[in-house]
């Protein structure tokens, strides 16, 4: 492992977590190649439990690619190859013995564009619990759906029309439906890939509020282009640039007192 780390071209500047939260995800020298092109050149980061970690950086810096490694969504892309170590609770997620289906039940994901299934609101949320057999009875299932919708602060808006199609909701409601859908399988980690980029400011504010509430129960990793959003919702921030992790540390620290010049330049809007 140390040999691999030595080949890393950049040394990441790290500031430790003052709250000293336990580590949920540990990654070391993660490299991703798409065909011939290396998109991520060895990223090592520890993501703390029950906190929001934000990945920021200019487009094409590899932050989304790295996010998709954590629940192995890169497997679905032909020609993508992942090297290095990613451990969830000390378990290597790229272990051949590990069932990727089980991993994705533990690490949920919310995408950039809301993607409700063309089914009813109820069925959208019930989809995960059904395939994983989480509910023993119909009442059980209903309870899971209702609590998930409540946790996603969507229940009050949709309680009278659970049988209507999820695609009929507004963009912000759709995104919260997707969050509810992810919560319904009781994951430990929720990955969010620019969850607010397709939403208007009011819907964004609601989703951000929701993310802050979810932190109590879930480990959240969010990729965002909005530095204000990162500052508002996250406890830790990691800055990516050109496939390297440049700096990571407590959010207030990274934003007010960055140690790296490039971080400083990006945050103050000099590039990106």
């Amino acid at each position: 492992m140390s040999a691999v780390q030595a080949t890393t071209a950049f040394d990441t500047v790290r500031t430790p977590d003052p709250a000293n939260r336990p580590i949920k995800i540990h990654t070391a020298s993660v490299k991703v190649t798409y065909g011939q092109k290396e998109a991520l050149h060895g990223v090592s980061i520890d993501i703390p439990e029950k906190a929001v970690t934000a990945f920021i950086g200019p487009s094409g810096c590899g932050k989304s690619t790295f996010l998709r490694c954590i629940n192995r969504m890169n497997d679905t892309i032909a020609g993508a190859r992942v090297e290095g170590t990613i451990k969830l609770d000390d378990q290597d997620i790229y272990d051949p013995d590990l069932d990727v289906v089980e991993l994705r039940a533990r690490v949920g994901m919310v995408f950039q564009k809301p993607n409700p299934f063309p089914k009813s609101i109820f069925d959208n949320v019930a989809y995960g619990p059904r395939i994983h057999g989480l509910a023993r009875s119909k009442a059980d299932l209903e309870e899971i759906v209702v609590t998930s919708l409540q946790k996603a602060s969507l229940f009050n808006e949709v309680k009278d029309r659970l049988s209507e199609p999820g695609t009929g909701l507004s963009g912000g409601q759709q995104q919260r439906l997707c969050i509810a859908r992810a919560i319904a399988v009781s994951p430990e980690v929720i990955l969010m890939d620019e969850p607010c980029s397709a939403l208007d400011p009011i819907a964004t504010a609601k989703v951000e509020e929701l993310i802050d509430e979810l932190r109590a129960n879930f480990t959240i990793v969010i990729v965002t282009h909005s530095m204000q959003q990162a500052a508002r919702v996250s406890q830790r921030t990691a800055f990516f640039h050109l496939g390297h992790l440049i700096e990571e540390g407590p959010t207030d620290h990274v934003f007010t007192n960055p140690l790296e010049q490039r971080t400083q330049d990006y945050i103050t809007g000099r590039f990106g």
Partner: protein
Amino acid sequence: MGPLWLLALIAGLSFFGFVLGRWKSVVLSGKGRGTLAARPGYYGAYVLIWTAMPALLILVALSIAKPILIEHTVRANLPEQVLANSTQLSLEVSGVEQVAAGLKLVTPEELENIRIGVVSARSVFAQHGLPLGQDVKPYQLTAAGALNLVSDGLDTAVDAAVVAALAFGLIFAFVRVKPRLRARNLVENTVLVLLIAASSVAILTTIGIVLSLLFQALQFFSMVSPVSFYFGTVWDPRFAAAGSTESGQFGFLPLFWGTLYISFFAMVVAVPVGLFSAVYMAEYATSKVRSVAKPLIEILAGIPTIVYGFFALTTVGPLIRDYIAMPLGLGTSGNNVLTAGLVMGIMIIPYVSSLSDDIITAVPRSLRDGSLALGATRSETMRQVILPAALPGVVGAILLAVSRAIGETMIVVLAAGVAARASLNPFEEMTTITVKIVNQLTGDLEFTSPQTLVAFALGITLFVITLGLNVLALTIVRKYREQYE
């Protein structure tokens, strides 16, 4: 000048007009008479359109009018007793046309000999390589002479009119080329008209086909009542020879049943196989496998149906008879519904699989990702998210395949036979609507007897059925598209 020469002349002068118009616009703008309202090429195209369009329209109009005028001339020159026999009239007219063609070949001396009756026109024509079926009658000779006169006159008139139109168009447009002329708008409008004309061709053809079917079908229904046609259970049209007055029974139901039954077996084969292969191609196959396998499946659609017919007749039919039908004691015929259904099913696999593949691939990737990210397996994702989302489109694809199966003829003739029968036993011979249409329209026939006219009634019924299926399919597919766009 022949029409080809005229076309060449039109093309040449139009090109010349283009060059001329373009040149004039460049010269005018160069002399500082104001900037051009359009690029020089548009002025060229403007002159080109004015040169070619009127001439072409005149050529087309006169070419259409010519046969009508000629037939009129011939009729005017035929004797009363010939005109009285209305059923033979069109034969007489074409006879005269042949004689007229012959008259153009003979030399003046020979013509004189024919006139005074020294030699027969038939033998002279034969010497010039134009064999006739009958001796030439004197009145035919007169009519043919008149025909040639009118025809030659018409040709000269066409030449003159086209040349005049060319000259007028070229000069008119050339004079009008000025910098402020909005040549671009005129060219754009002409293009628009051309585009509309092109799309009308298909629509007008469809309407024409329907009308021609409809008139003949109505003629049939005036002889046989629609009720006994659509609800009759016996198909026995009897012999359809010319002059036969005997009328049989025209029961549509056995044919309809045969069509449905054979199509049913075809779909039983094609839908699962086609759909599963589409799912494999769209979701599981690597791009390498896909790039090889997809064209291979589509080759099935390119095999001529007669070849499928051979395959059914010589291989599948005997196999089914020897190993299934005979041991079960259900039939002894190599021609049976099951064979036709199976082979037709294989033929329409690509219709189902190729369309379904496209539709499945068109389901947004975000839905797949959403499902996979929840920990669903690929097959769960396929069954519970992608197929439901693609279902309307897939149903549309299947309906299109059904209408293809219903219209199929060749495989049925060879594989299921021509016996019209309504039975539940799939090992018996049966036949379909299309086969009977072919049956009724081949051989020595007369287009006034119900035996042949029934083909048109069958045709229009089939047309309505497949049209209905197509409309249904297209509506479903369109609804599906609206969902994601």
